[in-house]
Structure formats: structure tokens, C-alpha cells
């Protein structure tokens, strides 16, 4: 009986995959496409068991993109130990992407940006809140929701300038005297992070 099942399964899967190879649906449209021939064959073979679920039946449809650009950007800014901003509606955020400071307005093109150590500023009316972000990612979605994740993000007032200077000179020295590739990389990271902090404090 189970040998039959695999033959039936492979038959209906082959039929399904040749159809769907050309017309791939996006996950916004997916959930209701249940293969009825498969379900019928399944019921003949194993009438007391529910047909298996497929991953798409567990997926929630992607939130639909509004047809007109929303006026506010919804920001979720999370750290491993705290949720700094959760669903906050703002006018703009400027994120320190590896490709440069990126301004994000409502209706921004969906983007995934890797962040470098730098300042992230959240603009709400005339309020500007700045954080120094150590590194992370920013996911900008089509529905004007921005998910920004960072490992460490601190308000600029909490950074000690003397420590930054000390660190900068220490790592510049290490970079000059580094031997292996790994040491060079670590020293370079140190120099980059401290220079970014320095620039953030003085800029």
C-alpha cells in the first residue's frame, strides 16, 4: 500500500512542479493553493490521516503594500537585551549602512542593509534621537516598516571621549605592529570602531 502512495505522490508532485516552475507565486498570494489531486489520492490511500501540510500553509501572507505611501515610517529597533523602539511611528531614520549614511523615508524601496559602526538618528517632527550603533542590519519592508537590529547601541552621551582616544591610539599601534592576518583584521576593526566613535562625538 505504501509503495502505491509514493508512486501517487511522485506523480502528483511532478505534475505540480512542472506547472509551478513557470508561474511562481509570491508569498503574498500563496496560502490557498492546495493541490486537490494530491489530497484526493491521499484520501484514497490513507483515509484516516490528514493530508500532510506544506510549508506554505503555515506561512502568514506577507502584509500587503498600501497603494499610497504612508505618511509615517514604523520603526522597530531591537538589541539582544532590549527592545529600544517598538512600532514607533517616525518621519525618518538615518542609518549607518556600509554603503554610507542612508536616509529612510516612508515608502522606501525594500532593502536589506548591513550596518557599520556609526550614528543612527531617528527623526520625529523636530525631535532627533541619536544612537551609536556597533554593527547590525536594517530590514526595510515594502509596507514602510523598518526593522533595525544591532548588537550594541548607546546614546552618544554615554560614550567616554578619553577612552575612545586611548583605544584609537592603542589600535593604531597594534595595526602597525600586527603580524598575522587575523591580528591585522582585529586591529583594523579596532581602528574603524574607534574612529567612528570619535567622529560621532566630534561631528
Amino acid at each position, binding site marked *: 500500500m505504501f509503495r502505491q502512495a509514493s508512486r501517487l505522490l511522485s506523480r502528483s508532485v511532478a505534475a505540480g512542479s512542472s506547472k509551478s516552475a513557470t508561474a511562481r507565486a509570491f508569498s503574498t498570494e500563496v496560502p490557498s493553493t492546495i493541490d486537490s489531486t494530491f489530497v484526493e489520492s491521499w484520501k484514497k490511500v490513507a483515509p484516516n490521516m490528514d493530508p500532510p501540510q506544506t510549508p506554505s500553509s503555515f506561512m502568514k501572507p506577507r502584509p500587503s503594500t498600501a497603494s499610497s505611501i504612508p505618511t509615517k515610517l514604523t520603526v522597530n529597533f531591537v538589541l539582544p537585551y532590549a527592545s529600544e523602539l517598538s512600532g514607533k511611528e517616525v518621519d525618518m531614520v538615518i542609518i549607518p549602512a556600509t554603503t554610507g549614511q542612508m536616509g529612510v523615508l516612508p515608502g522606501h524601496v525594500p532593502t536589506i542593509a548591513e550596518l557599520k559602526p556609526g550614528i543612527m538618528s531617528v527623526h520625529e517632527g523636530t525631535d532627533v534621537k541619536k544612537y551609536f550603533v556597533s554593527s547590525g542590519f536594517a530590514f526595510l519592508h515594502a509596507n514602510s516598516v523598518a526593522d533595525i537590529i544591532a*548588537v550594541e547601541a548607546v546614546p552618544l552621551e554615554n560614550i567616554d571621549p578619553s577612552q575612545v582616544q586611548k583605544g584609537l591610539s592603542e589600535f593604531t599601534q597594534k595595526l602597525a605592529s600586527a603580524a598575522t592576518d587575523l591580528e591585522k583584521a582585529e586591529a583594523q576593526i579596532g581602528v574603524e570602531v574607534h574612529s567612528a566613535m570619535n567622529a560621532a562625538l566630534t561631528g
Partner: protein
Amino acid sequence: MASTAAVPFWRAAGMTYITYSNICANLVRNCLKEPFKAEALNREKVHFSLSKWAGGKPEKPTLRSDTPGV
């Protein structure tokens, strides 16, 4: 199809992104002003107990309670 995209220097030196990110975070934490620095270092402490198994039985566990290292 070019898979010769410029790799970041840390990737070229054999480091993974997580290692890079953790190093950056540690450097930032070390440059904080006093009350925040102590809080951050406290928050990042890890304690774990490690035991090797031999012949189906755990041997004596070793306790590691490092302050944040990489």
C-alpha cells in the same frame, strides 16, 4: 555570474560576521562612561558548566565564568 564580489577585510582574514560583530560591540562597551560600562559588562557576563562525557557518563564538570571575552 561574478562571485568575486569584494569581501570585507575581516572575511578575507578568516573571521565570521558574528565574531566581527561581537568584537565591535565589545569595543563600544569598553568605551562607555562609568555607570553604563559596569552595567554593560555585568549584562554580558556568561557562566557555563562544561562536562565531557566518557562511556555514557558525565565526568566532573568544569565551571567557566568568563567576563565577556570574544
